[in-house]
């Protein structure tokens, strides 16, 4: 049987659409990155201008910090929530649905609501914390250099841990019962089940979900942009927002394109390393 061409026929429609709407933008971005506003070729000038800006390295480290910090907590909380939601208790169905809410709500809604809650004067969070005596006086959560990034990470974790939770929950539910039975025969307790059955069995799901989170994280604009726009003093400036600012606020599409090309290359390397690291271990993404 000619499996070769049959497979291609199945794949082709999606590929054509993607090629049309993705390949062209990529090529165009590449072109913009080596030309000036008038379209004349300028070599690597745009790249050196971007690399020379003080904000660029700062944004790069902020991106790693934001994406890395978010993912660790998203995965930990998401998995913990999944294990909890896999228990039997009354109202489990409702709790499962409620857990999904943060993920379902539009990013812009989440951002405006949280920004409102974290407001220094009118925000409910300062009110609650000063009232409970946790903090002596209101904190400028979103304006204090040392709290703003953790707060944004927390909001981002809140937004996306439910996604990890459902994916892991689906994985947990597909664990065959005989594995638990066997463990039970050996007298395993709950925590032993978690570490010897559940986590190993959902490892592939977690690995896959983490890759998604990396990709989304590297491309997330809405939450930070809506809350701080990268401020104060670039403390929360991440590279995607720097690109956005360069292009749409500074009208410098050529430098924005140059930064995009570099960012894309770095992102690609990170993803390739991640996939390679996975491929070399057993239990790879199925």
């Amino acid at each position: 049987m000619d499996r070769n061409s049959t497979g291609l026929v199945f794949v082709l429609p999606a590929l054509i659409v993607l090629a049309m709407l993705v390949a062209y933008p990529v090529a165009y971005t590449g072109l913009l990155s080596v030309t000036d506003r008038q379209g004349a070729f300028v070599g690597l000038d745009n790249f050196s201008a971007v690399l020379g800006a003080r904000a660029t390295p700062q944004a790069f480290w902020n991106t790693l910090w934001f994406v890395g910090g978010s993912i660790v907590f998203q995965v930990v909380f998401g998995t913990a929530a999944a294990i909890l939601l896999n228990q039997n208790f009354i109202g489990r169905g409702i709790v499962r649905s409620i857990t999904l809410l943060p993920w379902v709500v539009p990013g812009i809604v989440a951002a405006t609501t949280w920004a409102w809650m974290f407001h220094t004067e009118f925000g409910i969070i300062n009110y609650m914390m000063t009232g409970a005596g946790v903090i002596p006086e209101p904190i400028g959560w979103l304006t204090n250099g040392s709290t703003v990034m953790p707060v944004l990470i927390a909001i981002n974790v809140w937004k996306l841990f439910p996604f990890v939770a459902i994916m892991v929950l689906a994985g947990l539910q597909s664990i065959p019962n005989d594995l638990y039975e066997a463990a039970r025969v050996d007298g395993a307790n709950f925590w032993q089940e978690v570490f010897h059955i559940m986590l190993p069995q959902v490892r592939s799901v977690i690995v896959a979900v983490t890759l998604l989170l990396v990709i989304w994280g590297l491309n997330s604009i809405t939450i930070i942009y809506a809350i701080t726009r990268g401020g104060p003093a670039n403390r929360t400036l991440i590279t995607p927002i720097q690109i956005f600012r360069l292009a749409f606020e500074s009208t410098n599409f050529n430098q924005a394109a140059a930064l995009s090309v570099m960012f894309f290359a770095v992102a690609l390397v990170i993803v390739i390393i991640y996939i390679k690291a996975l491929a070399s271990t057993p239990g790879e993404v199925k």
Partner: protein
Amino acid sequence: MKLKKLAVIATAMTMLASGVAFAGDVTWWTPNFNEARAREIVAKFENANPNVKVKLEITTSDGLPQRVLTALQSGAAPEVIDVQHAWINGYAQNDLVLSVDDVLKDRDDYIPAALDYATWNSKLWGIPYRIETHAIIYNKGAFKDAGLDPNKPPQTWDELVATAKALSKGKMSGFGITGGGEMGNTIFRSLPFIWMNGGDMISADGKKALVNQPAAVAAVKFYTDFFKNKQAPASTLENDGTALRRLFIAETVAAYQSGQFDIASIKKENPKIDIGVMQIPHPADKKTAALLGGWSFVIPKSAKNPTDAKKLVGFLAEAENQGALTDTFPARKSAMSLPRFSDPILTVFKEMLPYGRAVPNNKNWIQITQAYFDGIQRILLGDEDVQKSMDGAAKDIQALLDQK
């Protein structure tokens, strides 16, 4: 010779063809706060020009620069767009809008600073219709409570500092400054202090960064000290102009810089406040200054129907129509005599207009202000002192100015 003639004919044919294809349709993007007034004016225009149909598309300020740019770059732009003055130069330098020298009549009737914004390469690329500057809005009741005479507001920097100090007690902050939100808010409020002190952000020839020169540093220190000395709210780093108005309404800020557009909502949301307006104080031996802001019309280069677009813009630019459309003041002096601008509360705002200045035209202006704004935030965060922070900003700005 022959070739040239041919080219002319071809161009004429193309113009004719496109003219025929799109005759009579003009799409105009205007911001949502203009909607009601714009509809009235469109009706008037269509009455006068029955063969032109205007399609009004309402825009919102959130993300407007991005949307306008996308439309301009894509080549599928509407015929007329309302944009803020400061955006025009970027469009002109990127060859995205049409020159409107042939549309604007009565140059002398316009406030010069407004035309400065729209000028590049000695041509005009937009027509200003709305202008405004800030003044200081203050709470007369708070003045009385602090033992100050509400009818004798401070006039110099030293007096403002003393007043802010006297006003700051309990929940009340004496003088609100911005340090967050969209950076334009802070440029609008702090750059005039630099100007009135004889400084600037960059030199007139656009070659040298000046933010770390003594005049600018003193002004930045004056501005940021309100926060450092706790005369501005703790939330300063997240406050933009709207937030300051909220705090003013909540009676936790006693005075702040803003435009006349704030008056109506203050009156509506807290009628108890007795509103006063004062000119922005200046150094003892110098004159005040303000940044002139507002909106202009531009005609995108890729507009399909430039002929009728110019007709519409010409109509909108007439003194009477400008006067009707603007949310603040019109850009033409003759329109200023309309009754709607004679409300006494507007007097001080009107007095400030002649002190209004345009920001410099530089292709990297946004990035320059970003560098300056980052510097302001570093000061407010307590990362660096004023001189060090402005030295850093000057270095960033110089790098931008040195780009070919």
